């Protein structure tokens, strides 16, 4: 219970030990981990000196491979080598039809709505595959930094919907990482460029990665980053450029139905050609099997990708409109993602915004670097840091109403965290249950939106139609995750759901997987748990003591103070002992005993923040 570790302006913060934290860019094609070391954010390499970890996982005879070794495996064993799994995160089985033809995997036939890929190691879910990548990056950071990570910031495309965010968080949990925050990739890029340190103004972040496209309009105002609007396409990226080239090659070479091995060969050749064309006018393409040789010039390539690039520019236009600004009000355009190396992309984006885009920081690393800076702040290593990110929810959240229509509860681009409630009523006499169907999207018909969750409120007292008052509340937290609650107002009957629907995993499932993954190390588990609880317990004590020193006298009367002191003393005894469960329970007891104090501190901080502004009636109210 780190009680309010906020230093008052001008007051030195209590010296803290430096907490290890890392930023992870979990990309479609490549992933990276970065950390702030001696004040400098940098990406961390593996023992071979490679910074970029290809987001590829191979399930081989001899075990799980991640990264370039897995990539090497793709050649001979495409079916057991999984790449671009990010595209499947938070997707349901029914979404696969949209992507299915293009994915060279065997999907298991299951009743579950979560797609499972058939591999040699059994059926795996996208969350599990991502967890393998995250685990490797977490380990890499811990060995580079020489200690356990307090927490990580994982980036997600701003355009990710709730299910996709939840799946990402689940993957991190499964990898044994504590997530401080999911951070939107474009925001991370802006932080990396230090735009938060510069002059106030509006910035556009154009992020074209391997599998996703995001455009974000950010406004910086005295250290507060506000996301004004976001837009994009969660299924458009450099992979599509590769695919366009591959299809062109197929046409030229007269290849009709490539099997998965040929498909993988084609995609590799296509990617190489695309990379060559970032610096050259012509790229040679040579296939061994089937044998084919040809060249692709820049003009032809531009023709192949123009419609894709145009799609991104349309999204930029929409994002500007949502933000209520014109293109010439944008000060900087930051380019992120490997695909922004494509000359046509830079050209078109430059034309649209009427200025040269920023390309100084390696577009592959810029997101991880920004995430590391944010992780360092969230770990509490920079108590004086002024920067604050205010995020928005990227897509409207609504509820199904009569006739398959959507009633929007929280419109897109609303600053989060947010809670909105709306009242509904019954439409039949004596109706005792109501179905709540949570949907996400901008369209008016439920069928055109994405279904996030369904649940039922039961036990509504029978009344005539229209008499019941059912209040449905949507809450989105700072990570963009949704919780929905329905309550019948006259009787107080309640039902709620944390929306981690069909696509994510339940907490129990995660717990089961965690257990399975450490089964071989069962003996360590008890020891590990005790250690974890002791660390947490010490953290709680440290924070409470610091808090009491800072303002215990001011905010507590002697009776309250001695009560807290007594609780603290008995808790210290627990932490010195060896019973992990008792410590866990003790933390809860102590937190409960300090509830009122924590609240007072929060209020007192708000009051201090507002001091000097208060109008008269405000002060009188306070006395």
């Amino acid at each position, binding site marked *: 219970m*780190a009680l309010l570790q906020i230093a008052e302006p001008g007051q030195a913060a209590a010296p803290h030990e430096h907490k290890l934290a890392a930023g992870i860019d979990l990309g479609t094609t490549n992933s990276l981990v970065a950390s702030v070391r001696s004040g400098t954010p940098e990406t961390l390499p593996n023992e071979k000196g490679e910074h970029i970890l290809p987001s590829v996982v191979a399930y081989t005879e001899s075990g799980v491979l991640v990264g370039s070794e897995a990539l090497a495996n793709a050649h001979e064993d495409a079916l057991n080598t999984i790449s671009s799994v990010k595209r499947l995160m938070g997707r349901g089985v029914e979404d696969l039809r949209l992507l299915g033809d293009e994915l060279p995997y065997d999907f298991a036939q299951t009743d579950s709505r979560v797609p499972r890929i058939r591999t040699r190691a059994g059926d795996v879910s996208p969350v599990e595959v991502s967890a393998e990548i995250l685990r490797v990056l977490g380990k890499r950071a811990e060995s580079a930094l020489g200690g356990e990570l307090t927490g990580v910031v994982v980036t997600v495309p701003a355009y990710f919907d709730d299910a996709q965010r939840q799946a990402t968080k689940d993957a991190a949990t499964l990898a044994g990482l504590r997530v401080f925050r999911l951070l939107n990739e474009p925001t991370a890029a802006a932080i990396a460029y230090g735009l938060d340190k510069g002059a106030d103004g509006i910035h556009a972040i154009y992020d074209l990665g391997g599998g996703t496209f995001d455009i974000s309009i950010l406004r910086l105002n005295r250290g507060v980053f506000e996301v004004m609007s976001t837009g994009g396409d969660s299924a458009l990226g450099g992979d599509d450029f590769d695919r366009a080239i591959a299809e062109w090659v197929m046409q030229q070479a007269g290849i009709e139905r490539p099997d998965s091995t040929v498909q993988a060969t084609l995609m590799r050749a296509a990617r190489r050609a695309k990379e060559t064309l970032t610096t050259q006018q012509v790229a040679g393409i040579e296939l061994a099997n089937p044998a084919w040789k040809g060249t692709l010039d820049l003009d032809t390539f531009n023709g192949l990708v123009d419609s894709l690039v145009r799609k991104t520019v349309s999204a930029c236009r929409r994002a500007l409109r949502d933000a209520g600004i014109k293109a010439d009000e944008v000060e900087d355009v930051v380019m992120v993602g490997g695909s922004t190396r494509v000359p046509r992309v830079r050209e078109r984006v430059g034309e649209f915004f009427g200025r040269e885009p920023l390309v100084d920081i390696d577009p592959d690393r810029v997101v991880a670097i920004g995430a590391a800076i944010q992780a360092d702040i969230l770990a509490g290593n920079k108590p004086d840091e002024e920067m604050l990110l205010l995020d928005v929810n990227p897509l409207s959240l609504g509820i199904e109403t009569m006739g398959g229509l959507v009633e929007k509860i929280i419109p897109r681009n609303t600053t989060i965290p947010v809670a909105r409630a709306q009242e509904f009523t019954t439409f039949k006499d004596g109706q005792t249950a109501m179905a709540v169907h949570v949907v996400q999207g901008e369209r008016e018909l439920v069928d055109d939106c994405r279904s996030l969750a369904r649940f039922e409120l039961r036990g509504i007292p029978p009344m005539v139609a229209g008499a019941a008052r059912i209040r449905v509340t949507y809450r989105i937290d700072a990570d963009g995750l949704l919780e929905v609650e329905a309550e019948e107002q006259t009787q107080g009957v309640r039902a709620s759901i944390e929306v981690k629907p069909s696509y994510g995993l339940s907490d129990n499932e995660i717990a089961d997987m965690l257990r399975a993954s450490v089964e071989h190390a069962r003996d360590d588990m008890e020891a590990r748990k005790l250690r974890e609880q002791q660390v947490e317990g010490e953290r709680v004590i440290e924070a409470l003591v610091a808090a009491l020193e800072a303002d215990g006298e001011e905010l507590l009367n002697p009776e309250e103070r001695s009560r807290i002191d007594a609780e603290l003393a008995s808790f210290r005894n627990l932490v010195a002992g060896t019973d992990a469960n008792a410590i866990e329970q003790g933390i809860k007891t102590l937190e409960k005993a300090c509830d009122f104090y924590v609240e007072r501190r*929060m209020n007192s901080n708000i009051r201090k*923040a507002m001091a000097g502004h208060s109008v008269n009636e405000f002060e009188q109210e306070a006395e």
Partner: protein
Amino acid sequence: MHIANFDMLDLSKNFFELFGLPVSYTIDDTALRERYRELQRTVHPDRYANASQQEQRLAMQGSTFINEAFETLKDPLKRAQYMLRLLGVDVDSDNETTKDTAFLMEQLELREALSEIRYQADPLGAIADLLDTVTGKFNRVISDMTTDFENPSADRLDAIRERVRKMQFLGKLHREAESLEAELEEELL
């Protein structure tokens, strides 16, 4: 020990007091934004990423409340509705409609113009003109509203409710015109 009673996160607290602003329909936009940022800097969940779940919960509630207050005060329509509630007027405006027939006629004409705009020679120019007209009308309602709120007698309160309904009409029309504009721009690409 006045602090124990000083509960800023009390959800019944007046939004104006939260921001240290006088209760008034005319709002100092710069001060509002500035104080909003200061408050968020104090309570935003990111400030408690490393804290206990208890504090994270409280931070989230506080931050949510501040967002709600800010959204309400910065929007002229929501601000008016909120002030009516503070004055004890229950606004269930969804089920009310204006009885000003001249205004309704005018709305019908504007809607008709909007539905035919697509077939005009310069539809985007025509939409821009229409948006200007609607914004002008909206701003006039705001300025009338400001006067009414200065001395909210019973008559004036009725007038305000009427204006709130008109604002809703105009706001809806504006949104529809904007989405048509977006649609046309996409088509013309």
